[in-house]
Every structure is written in structure tokens, then in C-alpha cells.
């Protein structure tokens, strides 16, 4: 990352941080996200109009918040009294407002977005939209969905939050655990849609770790997303071809992101409560340790076994089989994979990582005819161009 993109990224993060914080504060009192968004948009628009001539206020966020609040009061009055009263922000007193003294209510906002009464499918888009300020068009692109469809879903969800009165409140301790799990899953959803670049998930996970500093899984998830994103530059070579993890050039990994991830892992570890995301992050950390020396496969095997035990999924099973192959040989890995596939039944045959791993293991065992058939199956299931070309190259080399 060069100086310019780094600075641009820092500016983008600061802007998105402000947006989420301000929107959470404006929406928390009324539960009306749409009204809060309109008020905030007005405040930004007024800033663009007045700051160039009158100068940027000492505390821009406090200025925006005050203007946004006035705008909300304005809307509220016009709805009740049926007349519009324009309340201008008073630039003299606004600077006295200390935004840091105002509580950060983004955790409440995230709780609302991942509330049990909100449809699972809209939770991640809703978070990207309200916590980070991404537009329906940007989110639609990430989810491969038309912008208008995404916009309709977001509008419907916000209306539901308002009419059913979903509270902007941190629930009691007993209820908090399942609610935090729902938030983590929604943030993880942002990571899964785009593992290659992960700019949205990176930021969302960082916000969550900031607002829930004592939740070890929030730190684990942030570390996981960062470690994965750190390797993105090495995932594609100069010719646009997919590079498997084992052949990555560690010098191309993003060192800053890896260091930041380790800070999160330490913060998670200090809470002494192990969970799925911490394990996934630990696995990524072991892979990233290849910068210093050979990959520690026995440790990876232990971590993968633990992960498959506490959060079993097709993905964790395939990964466990792949690591078993590295420690106990390809025959042992293939046996583990075939047991898993037989147990999982039909859906497993459409799971691309299972097909690619199977082809690779058959290839290593020199079972060429079977390997060829397995590569063909895997290629048919691969949507990523670079990865498909890589598999085609392997098949051709048989």
C-alpha cells in the first residue's frame, strides 16, 4: 500500500466512523433510521455549503450532530404542528460540544441490525448501510444483486425497526450472548461475500471490536478478517493467476494488517474464553507465521480438530482433511475427506473446496484418471476466474 492509498484509506475510515457514530446517536432516540439518515444527509449537505466559506469547525462531528439533531426536531415539529420551522445550527456554541463525551451507540445500532425480528438475509446489508454508510448500490454490487432490490430490502427493514419498535438498547447479560452471536454472524457474512478484498468486513469487524472490547470473539473475528485480507496481494500473481497459499510470497503480505490482527488475538486471549472465530484466526495466524519459517502443520491439525469439534461444518471438515494430508500423508487426508463426503451426502458434491481438495489429493497419490475426473468436477463448480484457470492448469499437467 503506498502513501497515497494509505492516506485515502485512512480518510475513508475516519469518514465512515463518523457516519456510523452520528447515525447511531441520531436514530437511538426515535428508532427511526430513515429520518436519522435524512437529517444526517442534510447536515452533510449544509457542511459542504458553509464550511468552504466559513471555515471548518473545530469539532466537525459535533457540528454535524447538532445540525442533524436540529433537523430531526424540525421534522418532528412539522409532522406534529403541520408547519416547517427551520432551525439553523448555531456555529458559536456548537464547538463546545465534546463528541468524545457522548457515548458511542454503534453497538446498539448493530444489535438492532442483527435483531431476531430482522430477516437473516438483510442483517449484513443493513449493517453495511447504517454502520458504515455504504449505499444500496455498493452493497447490491457486493451481493450480486440489483441496487433497486437491495434498496427495497433496506427500506423495508428500517420501516420494520420503526413500526415494531426494536429498541436501541444493550440487553441483559442473559440475553446478550445470543445477540452478540447474531452480530458476529452478520459481520462474518460481510467477510464471506468477498474474501478477496474484504474492505467492508475489515472495517465492520474493527468497529465491532471497538464497541465490544471485552468480547473475545469480536477480537477473534477482526483478527480473522485482517489475516485473510493481509494475504490478498499475494493471492494473484503478476499475470492475474491464482496462487495457492503454499506458493504465496510472504513478502507480498500486508505486514501492518498482520500486526494489527495479532493485537486483536492478544486482546481475545486475555478474556480467556475460546470460540470459533478465535480458532479460525489462530489457524490463519499459523499460516501467516510462514514469514518466519516453515508452516507448523501439527499445530494446524490440532487447531482444525478443535474447530471442527466446536463449530462443525462442511468447510471445517474439508479443511481438516486437507491438513490431515499434510501431517499424515495424502492417503490419510483422502480417507478423511471421503468419510466426510459420504456423511454429508448430496450437498457436499456441490461444495467447491471439497472437489478441489479431492482432486489435489488424488493428484498427489498419482491416481491420474480419478484425479482428472475430480479436477473436471471442481472446475465446473469454480466461479472465480483465476482459481478456475489454476485448476485447469493442474489438470493439464497430469
Amino acid at each position, binding site marked *: 500500500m503506498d502513501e497515497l492509498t494509505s492516506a485515502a484509506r485512512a480518510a475513508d475510515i475516519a469518514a465512515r466512523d463518523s457516519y456510523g457514530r452520528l447515525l447511531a446517536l441520531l436514530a437511538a432516540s426515535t428508532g427511526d433510521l430513515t429520518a436519522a439518515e435524512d437529517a444526517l444527509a442534510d447536515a452533510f449537505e449544509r457542511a459542504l455549503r458553509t464550511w468552504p466559506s466559513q471555515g471548518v469547525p473545530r469539532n466537525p462531528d459535533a457540528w454535524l450532530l447538532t445540525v442533524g439533531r436540529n433537523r430531526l426536531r424540525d421534522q418532528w415539529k412539522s409532522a406534529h404542528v403541520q408547519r416547517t420551522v427551520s432551525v439553523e445550527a448555531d456555529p458559536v456554541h456548537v464547538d463546545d460540544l465534546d463528541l468524545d463525551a457522548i457515548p458511542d451507540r454503534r453497538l446498539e445500532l448493530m444489535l438492532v441490525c442483527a435483531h431476531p*425480528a430482522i430477516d437473516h438475509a438483510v442483517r449484513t446489508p443493513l449493517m453495511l448501510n447504517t454502520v458504515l454508510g455504504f449505499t444500496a448500490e455498493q452493497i447490491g454490487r457486493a451481493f450480486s444483486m440489483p441496487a433497486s432490490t437491495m434498496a427495497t430490502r433496506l427500506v423495508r427493514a428500517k420501516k420494520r425497526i420503526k413500526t*415494531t*419498535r*426494536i*429498541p436501541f*438498547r444493550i440487553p441483559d447479560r442473559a440475553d446478550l450472548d445470543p445477540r452478540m452471536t447474531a452480530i458476529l454472524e452478520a459481520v462474518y457474512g460481510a467477510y464471506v461475500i468477498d474474501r478477496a478484498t474484504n474492505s467492508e468486513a475489515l472495517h465492520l469487524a474493527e468497529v465491532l471490536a471497538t464497541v465490544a472490547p471485552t468480547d473475545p470473539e469480536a477480537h477473534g473475528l477482526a483478527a480473522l478478517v485482517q489475516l485473510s485480507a493481509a494475504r490478498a496481494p499475494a493471492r494473484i500473481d503478476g499475470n492475474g493467476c491464482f496462487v495457492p497459499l503454499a506458493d504465496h510470497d510472504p513478502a507480498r503480505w500486508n505486514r501492518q494488517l498482520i500486526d494489527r490482527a495479532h493485537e486483536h488475538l492478544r486482546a481475545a486471549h486475555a478474556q480467556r474464553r475460546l470460540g470459533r472465530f478465535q480458532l479460525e484466526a489462530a489457524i490463519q495466524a499459523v499460516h501467516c507465521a510462514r514469514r518466519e519459517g516453515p508452516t507448523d502443520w501439527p499445530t494446524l491439525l490440532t487447531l482444525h480438530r478443535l474447530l471442527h469439534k466446536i463449530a462443525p461444518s462442511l468447510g471445517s471438515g474439508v479443511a481438516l482433511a486437507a491438513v490431515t494430508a499434510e501431517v499424515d500423508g495424502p492417503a490419510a487426508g483422502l480417507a478423511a475427506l471421503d468419510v466426510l463426503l459420504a456423511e454429508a451426502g448430496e450437498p457436499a458434491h456441490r461444495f467447491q473446496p471439497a472437489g478441489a481438495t479431492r482432486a489435489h489429493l488424488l493428484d498427489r497419490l498419482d491416481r491420474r484418471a480419478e484425479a482428472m475426473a475430480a479436477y473436471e468436477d471442481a472446475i465446473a463448480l469454480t466461479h472465480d476466474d483465476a482459481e478456475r484457470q489454476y485448476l485447469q492448469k493442474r489438470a493439464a499437467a497430469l
Partner: protein
Amino acid sequence: MRYALLMHYREPAEGEISPEVIAEAQEAFGAYGRALESAGVLLSADVLALTPATTTVTCREGGLRVQDGPFAETKEALAGVFMIDVPDLDAAIGWAEKCPGAQWGVIEVRPVATAFVDGGWTS
């Protein structure tokens, strides 16, 4: 905010449920009603007679039409209505979860849009 907790469940055939089970359910509903009342959130609680006792009335097609039976014949029928007044959806879901009907049926939680109170509809 006022919420309606609408209980839906399959109506049992006559004699399908033993007197002991009925007594247990009555006991549970008694405790639930007392809990709502002592929390100060209860507006009204009504358990409805079975659907064969329903009469449906409409003037939608012009004149008055009175019909024997419920509006929609479904496997699960509206069985009772609890009106409560609580601060938000989390509180309403909390009460719905404690409703004995949730054990064998589903509870629909619906916010009240407007209610007739003290001679007028609330805004």
C-alpha cells in the same frame, strides 16, 4: 407501546386432550395472567371459543353477508388475544415467550397502530 399477542394453534378435537392436561394448561394460563397483571402491562386477555362458534360478517360485496365459520379456514386458528402495553419489541417478545400457548402453538406479536382510548383514536 401497545402490542397484541395473538395465539394460534391447532384446535383439538373433542376429548383429544385429557382433563389432567387441560387442568395443567389452565394452571399455566392462570400464572401467566397473574404475571402480566403484577408487571402492570396487561390491558386485556381473552381466550376465544373454538372456530365452529365463529360468525363472519361482511358488507364488502354490497349488502350484509353473515356466514357460519371463520374468515379463513386454516390448520391453526386464532385462539386468543392478549393486549399488553410495554416499552418495545424486546419486552413484547419476552412476554410472548412466556405465554403457555407458545409451547404448543405460535404467538404472533403485532404492534398496535392506533387504539380507541378515552373517547378517541390515539395518534
